[in-house]
């Protein structure tokens, strides 16, 4: 996935309507989003991290996933 594509998706995310009050469920909802749109699989310990607030971290994650794949 290109840098432009990652940035585009992260911009789109600002328009998400869904949210939940339960932090654990919110973390899972975010993980579902990341895995679906970026095509990666997260480890349990990555749920709840601030990946979506950090485009650089997403790019690292994607690069690592690609190199592993």
């Amino acid at each position, binding site marked *: 996935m290109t840098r432009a594509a990652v940035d585009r998706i992260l911009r789109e995310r600002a*328009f998400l309507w869904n949210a939940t009050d339960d932090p654990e*469920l919110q973390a899972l909802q975010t993980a*579902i989003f990341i*895995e*679906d749109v970026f095509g990666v699989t997260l480890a349990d310990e990555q749920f709840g991290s601030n990946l979506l607030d950090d485009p650089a971290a997403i790019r690292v994650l994607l690069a690592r996933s690609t190199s592993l794949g």
Partner: protein
Amino acid sequence: MCGICGIVTDGPAPDLALVTEMMAQLYHRGPDGSGYVRDHQAILGHTRLAIIDATGGVQPLCNEDGTVWVTFNGEIFNYLELAAELRDCGHQFRTASDTEVIVHAWEEWGADAFNRFNGQWALGLWDRRKRQLVLSRDRLGVRPLYYHRTAHAIAFASEVKAIFADPAVPREFDPVGLDQIFTYWSTIAPRTPFAGIEQLPPGHLATYDSDGFRSRPYWQIEFPAKGHEPGQDLDDNAAGLRERLIEATRLRFERSDVPVGAYLSGGIDSSVTAAVIRNFTNVPLNTFSLRFAEAEFDEGGYQRLMAQRLGTHHQDIVVSARDIAEVFPDVVWHAESPILRAAPAPLFLLSKLVRQSGYKVVVTGEGADEVLGGYDLYREARVRDFWARDPKSARRGRAVELLYPWMARNPSQTPAFARGFFGMGLDPSDTAMSHRPRWNSTSALRTMLTADLRAELAARPLPDRAKAMPPTSASWDPLARAQWLEMTMLLPGYILASQGDRMLMANSVEGRFPFLDPNVVEFANALPARHKLFGLDEKFLLKYAFADLVPDEILIRPKQPYRAPDAASFFAAGSPDWLDDVLSPSALLAAGVFEPSKIAGLVEKARQRSGRFGNTDNMRVLAVLSTQLIHQQFLANNPARADREAPPEPLHIVDLVRREKEDR
């Protein structure tokens, strides 16, 4: 919108009295008049709901030289553009109706004509030049079309009851059709609940001539490979969707010679269509809503909010559980299928209000959930996909608690049960993984069947629906595969049929569905999946594209699917008079579908606590009641029920056989 019927033989003259009886059975679909054309081996019949060109659009209708005749149910919304094109090709029009476009288009383009139609239709076309009957149905199955074949003839009609007008047609359940309903919620065309009665699949045309009967698709649902969607930009896609949806809504609202109303459900889909009408047309808007006496099902607050925002003349009807029970036999009579939900009944009452208010046409938001990713089932599938990527994860299973937030008893309140239910069959290689939980839970209905029927079905199990998917589906996004299943099964088989056409036409009202415009559907299918279901945010692009026209309260509310009280309607506050008749041991034995002892247990349980029934028991009750009513009304040795004994007046007759004799 109308009723169509006909008989074509391989030689002998069809029975005119029988076609007249078929037309009488379709009175409710076209109370404004009727007509038939009689040829040597074909009779086409028609009952008319006059919407476009009330004077000139009388059917059946022909081309310039009378060699092509059509009986037509539906609308060709782009008929003005097609007529202009056909005039340029030299065709001469005698009317201003959309029906006439069909005969000229068939002459000019043959079978390619159907791909040029933007509309909703079922039609029978008699081509005298080839002595050929052509049957065609719109892309997604908005309009119904049934037929019955014998060695020397074919009879077709908008509804099965018209085909049953012929006493020679066998009246039996089709065990495989029932099995499909008790697994998938509906039959899959060409199958129906009745042995020997078939339906033309959506997007198909069929021909019947000296070479026999042949059926083939002229259009199919397609999706791009995941990651290869042509448009990735959110703003571009939103603009594209908005432009197409506005045009689709305008076509459906403006192309009518009678006033068009709109449904307002309280959700985003009908809010968008109503808002588009208000903002992009210059005509007054009347809106209609369905409310429920039970607060759990009622969306009146959101309906009023939208009606006030748009300044419409708004009417609603409040439906109680008792109302549902009382009209249910009529609902099943019109649905012509076992149904697993009571939800069609309130829609039957709503269309009655529409008709009593002087309206023949309504625009609704139907199809948005299938096309733009609105169903809870899609969210459920995404959660299951997520879990299936690491089934041993200690945390992923909790994601099921994000599902069905609108339910009174949702998965977050019964997490262990929910994890057990949604965690079954997590197999990423299964292309139908999205639908397995629904199919598995529905097939619990089979345990109520008689031993004979269960043995018969066990001997011929249903083929796996996943194998019916196109070969290219392996490269589609999982959401696209789920959409394909939904758009080829529940949409035509239940949503547009038992909940759609049948409940509207029961009261002579035509429904029009902008979200099912082919330009909208093909555009939406090509979108990246995230623009439909963004994470777990349903109909993301629709909300983004129309955020300026729909109040935030409606935009951000979790989707609440349309539901009605089910088993409780028939048991919680007393039972309707008809109930004991259809559930008596003799009626159950006569139908031969359900094991009487099991039904006795179910009924006893329902009498005690139907108000606390879960999904499976609600389905069981509805399946039994509707199937027994089908048997009583259609299959038992009763004379055919008919609301009317003759077709509606005035009767328009074209007798080509007599004309030939007179010419000689």
